[in-house]
Every structure is written in C-alpha cells, then in structure tokens.
C-alpha cells in the first residue's frame, strides 16, 4: 500500500499543529463557534448527541495491521473500546473529548493516518472497490489513481469552501462494488478501442434528500488528464453551485438545473484552460504510485486445494461461510475473504478494540499484513491462501467474526442512527437487529442475495435509496416511523428504490420485511435474486401484501 515520504509526513505534521492551535484558540474563546465549525469539520470532528464524534479517514479503505492496531489503541484510550466503520470506508469514534482530539491526531500521524477532510464542504475521502488489485475480474487496479486523487484533493486551496461536500469514487473492476454512480463524481476505469485504459466520468450522483444517479459527462478521459479534468469540474461547481440553500447546494442539483449538455460545455471550457498544464500527470508519477500497489509475494500454488476441499465437505457452517464470504482471486490458490461485521445483535460496522487486534493478527498471518474496509461496513483480507481459509474461519469464529452472511439479508448497511447521531430522526441500529432476529440462518440462505440499507434520516448515510429494500427513519409528530422503499441497487446498473407507501411503526418493520420476502419466495423463478424478481413484478404485488389486513 502507499507509504508516506518526507513530504507527506511534513504536510501531516503541519496539519496537526495547525488544528492544535485552532482548538486551543477555540477553547480560549478567541475563535467563535461559527468560525471554528468548518475547521473542526475538516478535521473530522462533529458535535454529537453524547460527545464529539471523530471520523478518521481510511483512504480508499486500505489499512495496514499497524494502523488497525493504532485504531484499537485509540478506541481503548480515548473512546469506549470500539469503533464504527462507515459507508465511505472510514471509521468513527463516538466518545472522544474535544480537548483530546489534537492528541489523537498526533497518534494517528505516527501511522500515516488522519481525519483530514472527512467532513465539511470540501473534497472527502475517495472510495473504491475493496477487491481492487486482487479480484480476478478487473480492468485496472484503481488504488494508484485513488492515491493520486487523495494528494490532489488534500488541502486543495481553491476547493476547501465549496457550496457543499464532494465525494469521489473510482471503480476499476468489471463489477461495481463502490456505489460509484451515487457519488458527486464517479470514475469507471474503461478500455478504449485502442486498448488504452482511461476513465469514464459520471457526475452529479448522490443520495440524501434528492437521490440522483450520476450521468456520463465524458465517455473516455485519458489517464494523464485525470487531475486537470477534476480541477475543471470542481471549479465550475465552486463558482456556480448554489450557495443560497443548503439542500440544493450539491453538484447534482447544479447539473440538473443547468442541464448536462450545458454543464459539460462549461467544464470543457474550463478544462481547455487547464489541460496539458502542470497538473497533467507524468508517467514517472503514475509509475511511482503504481509501485506501492504491486502484488505481494504470492506463492505459485495449484488452482485447487485439497485441505480446502476436505474442510468444505465435512463442515457445513464453514461451507456456508465460504459460499458467501469468499470471492475469486486473480492468483491461483488464493482467495479474497470478507470478515462480516454483521453478526446478529451487533451494530452493523461496529468493531471492538479486541476484535481489531485479533483481525490485525490474522491479516499478518494470512494476508500480507493488509486489510480493506468496505463501504458495506465489513473488512476484507484480500490475499489469503486457500489452504489457510479453514484455519482463518475457525479463528474468526472464536471472536464472533465468522458470520457467513455477506450479501445476505442480514448483511445490512446501517448508519449509527438516533442512538448516537444528532441529525437522526429515528433509531436505526435496533431496527437492523429486529430484522436480523426475525430470520433463521436457513431462511437467510434460502432468500439469498438481498441488500437492506437503513438510514435514520434523509441525509442517507445508510444509503437507503440504493438498498434492494431501503428503510428510512422519519419523524411524525415526535414519533419515530419508518418509510420502506423497494428496488434500489448500487451496482453497475444503479437505481433509486421506489417508496412502497405510508410509513410503519418500529415494531411493524420485521413483519413488513417478512411479507416482502414472502412475495419474492413465492414468485421467484429459477436463479432469480430478490432484485430480479422485483424488476420483473414491480412494486404492486409487494405493496398489496404489505398493506393487506392480517389474515
């Protein structure tokens, strides 16, 4: 993975010192609440229900075991012994003290980590496919490009006070695992007719109050032009994005109101001034970044492994985990294993310091000392020898980390909700748990691939719009209710779910989900996933069943 050089270290040291000074001036009363606000946000610090919430950046989800152990240390010393992985591959701590934040940032800097631009109206952490560089089905590893974007976007002097936040995702695989189409800018690596790789650029995607799927602004962008083109889009946005209304300030509204053709013209005009300028990427820099993401020292192994075959034969629970949580690797004899952070009864994405250390030990032993955090709030060991999978799973089981539910109904995306977040209208974690408890393991397996995404308010941190089943907490006269939508998806063919009808009380939700699932099971054809059956039937039969009087 990327390693800091003296420049990166120096930049981070300067930032830590800057924020230490800003915090001191705020605590001294020399900096007003309003003036401190964007400064603390751009250092990941929110004021939350119980305490400040600190969101740390995990650039494009990559973590070394050394970094994960540092996170465990921070969880123990400055928090209550756990952290929460977010839907943008970051981690949040919910209980730090404001006074201690500069100290936490200094600890993080030791392991090349920080909280820069994880919040605020600036360019946020760039996200990508958690299988990047390891998957068998990939056009190009997106991570070097993410790193180039990280550096370009860090402390960008022109774009630190944008109309609103700005999120970029890059997907280099054939299958989109990064929810690329619901980002302000989505970049797909593609190959043109001449066999060169470059970027297909989407703009104006986003969830929140006005969910929109990003639209293509450019079908092929040569790689060396990546940063000048991003600069051009951001400049058009910074200059003309709406600042009069917070809810209309995202670039998606600007693109919608301007019209894609006119917006594209503005970007092209701006780009003409920047193209071939100093931000044009050099071959040397691209090669430098790529070198950080070279293959680890894989061994030459046979395609099939006997230890694995035997274990799959004799242990049905392991076979279930293998079927769900293990993905095909590009290198024969290796596998990509996902550690589910969604066992029933735990807040989705939560991980204790003990589990962090345990996962770090396993990654050291089995996966070259590196991990990836997924936007679905799980953790990936990307380079595991097939021979070790059974051992790995047995070890995971001992810490409640061996749940074999990846992509199943119980593998829910869920925001912290009203239990923690000051913005939330409603709780989300207890909803997730109630749904998980409603289904047995056998049922989950029979239902198969089905995503349920839960957000506690319309800011949509739980990506409810793009869940096959989406659940949104709403406030009705001081009471918590839940609106359900169906048919959302975040893949290459992304779609916003349709609202099924009037919202439900909290205790009704498990039964509502059960009825929706029942319609699928009764109507599915051979090989159809929930989303396929939904696409064929549309919403009517689901709606009818859900609102039918109890029989």
């Amino acid at each position, binding site marked *: 993975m990327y390693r800091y*050089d003296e420049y990166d270290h120096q930049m981070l040291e300067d930032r830590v010192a800057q924020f230490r000074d800003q915090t001191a001036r705020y605590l001294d009363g020399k900096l007003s609440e309003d*003036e401190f606000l964007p400064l603390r946000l751009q250092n990941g610090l929110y004021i939350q229900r119980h305490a400040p919430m600190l969101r740390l950046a995990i650039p494009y989800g990559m973590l070394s075991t050394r970094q994960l152990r540092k996170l465990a240390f921070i969880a123990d010393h400055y928090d209550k012994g756990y952290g929460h992985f977010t839907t943008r591959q970051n981690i949040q701590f919910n209980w730090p003290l404001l006074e201690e934040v500069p100290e936490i940032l200094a600890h993080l800097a030791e392991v090349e980590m920080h909280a820069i631009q994880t919040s605020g109206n600036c360019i946020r952490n760039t996200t990508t496919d958690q299988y990047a560089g390891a998957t068998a089905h990939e056009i190009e590893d997106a991570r070097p490009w993410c790193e180039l974007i990280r550096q370009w976007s860090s402390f*960008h002097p022109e774009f630190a006070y944008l109309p609103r936040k700005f999120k970029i995702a890059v997907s280099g695989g054939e299958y989109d695992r990064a929810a690329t189409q619901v980002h302000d800018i989505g970049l797909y690596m593609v190959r043109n007719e001449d066999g060169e790789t470059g970027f297909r650029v989407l703009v104006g995607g986003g969830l929140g109050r006005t969910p929109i799927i990003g639209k293509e602004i450019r079908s092929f962008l040569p790689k060396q032009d990546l940063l000048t083109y991003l600069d051009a889009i951001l400049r058009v946005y910074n200059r003309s994005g709406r600042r009069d209304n917070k809810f209309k300030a995202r670039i998606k509204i600007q693109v919608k109101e301007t019209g894609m053709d006119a917006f594209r013209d503005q970007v092209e005009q701006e780009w003409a001034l920047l193209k071939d300028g100093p931000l044009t990427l*050099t071959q040397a820099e691209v090669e430098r970044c790529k070198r950080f993401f070279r293959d680890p020292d894989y061994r030459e192994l046979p395609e099939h492994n006997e230890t694995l075959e035997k274990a799959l034969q004799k242990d049905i629970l392991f076979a279930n985990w293998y079927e769900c949580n293990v993905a095909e690797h590009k290198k024969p004899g290796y596998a990509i294993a996902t550690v589910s952070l969604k066992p029933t009864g735990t807040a989705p994405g939560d991980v204790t310091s003990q589990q962090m250390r345990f996962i770090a030990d396993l990654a050291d032993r089995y996966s070259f000392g590196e991990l990836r955090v997924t936007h679905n709030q799980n953790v990936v060991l990307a380079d595991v020898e097939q021979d070790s999978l059974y051992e790995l799973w047995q070890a995971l089981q001992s810490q409640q980390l061996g749940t074999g539910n990846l992509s199943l109904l119980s593998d829910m995306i869920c925001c912290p909700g009203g239990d923690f977040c000051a913005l939330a209208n409603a709780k989300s974690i207890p909803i997730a748990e109630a749904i998980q408890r409603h289904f047995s393991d056998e049922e989950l397996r029979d239902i198969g691939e089905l995503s349920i995404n839960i957000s506690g308010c319309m800011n949509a941190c739980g990506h409810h719009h793009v869940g096959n089943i989406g659940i949104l907490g709403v406030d009705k006269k001081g009471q918590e209710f839940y609106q359900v939508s169906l048919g959302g998806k975040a893949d290459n063919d992304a779609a916003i779910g349709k609202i099924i009808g009037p919202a439900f009380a909290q205790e009704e939700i498990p039964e509502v989900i059960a009825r929706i699932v029942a319609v699928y099971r009764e109507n599915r054809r051979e090989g159809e996933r929930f989303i396929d059956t939904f696409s064929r039937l549309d919403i009517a039969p689901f709606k009818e069943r859900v609102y039918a009087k109890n029989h």
Partner: protein
Amino acid sequence: MPKIIKDGAWVDDAWVLLRDEISSDLLESHAGQDLIVPLEDWLGQQAPLKRHEGRVGVWLASHELPEQLGSAIPDLPLIAVDFPAFKDGRGFTNARELRERFAYEGELRAIGDVLRDQLFYMMRCGINAFDLRDDQNPDVCLSALRDFRDSYQPRIDQPLPLFRRRAPAD
C-alpha cells in the same frame, strides 16, 4: 493610517475601499486618494474615474467574474476579491483565475470576512494582500502564512505540483 498584510508584512495602506455605488460627489470628496471601486461602477463610469486624481482599483463581488474586467486586467494597479462570508469559497476561484488564466501580476487583495484561518489558502490561490476583519490580530494572522511548509498542488510561487518535484521511488 489603516494597515493591511501585504507580501508577508504588516504595512500602512492608503487605498480607500468604496463599498457602495460611486457618485461625482463621492469622488470629489476622495480627490487625490487611491480608490477601490465596485466592478459595476468601474465598468459604467469610466469617464469620471479617468478624471479622478489618484489610482483606481476594482473589487469583485463573489458572484462576479474576472473576465468581466476584460482586457484592462494587466493595467490595473489593484484588484480586490471579496469574501462576503468566510465560508463563501468563490473568491478562491476568482483569485486563482486572475493569476493563472489572466496572468495578473499586480496587487491581489482579499477584502471582507478575511480571517486568520483562511489566509493560507488565499495566499496559495495568489492573493498577496489581506485587508483583515477589524477583530483579527495581525501577528497571529502573519503566522498563518506559514501554516504549511509545502503543498501537493501548484501555487503561485511554486507552479509545479509536488509530484513534478518529487524524487522517483525506488
């Protein structure tokens, strides 16, 4: 005399910023002084401004664009970029465009809600003079210009981004 930060020093400043629409009476009352006038008046009242004894600069509101200044840019002794609120980031783009696209080399001044914690980015976008909000401490503000020792992006005093200056990795 009022003071501003200019080119890294706390210096006397003789320019008078005219926030509101100008009139012949107003110009009369400032005879002999250096004035910073609104873009709209600068565009619409060239004749009386030409007669004015003293230099004339222009300030751009955050929704106004450098290209509205047309071909006069290189000859202007001063262009000011307004930050009506410190969170309004349009001035950063205006500054960078004036320096990079229009190759403006004269004084580029931040006016309005100009605070310590935005100065560094302003400087990086090419602003070299800062008319601070009244409550700002000049010494603290001067130190802000040294918040970072280097930067990833191109800037006015270092037009090459860091990646073009870095030694290649092994």
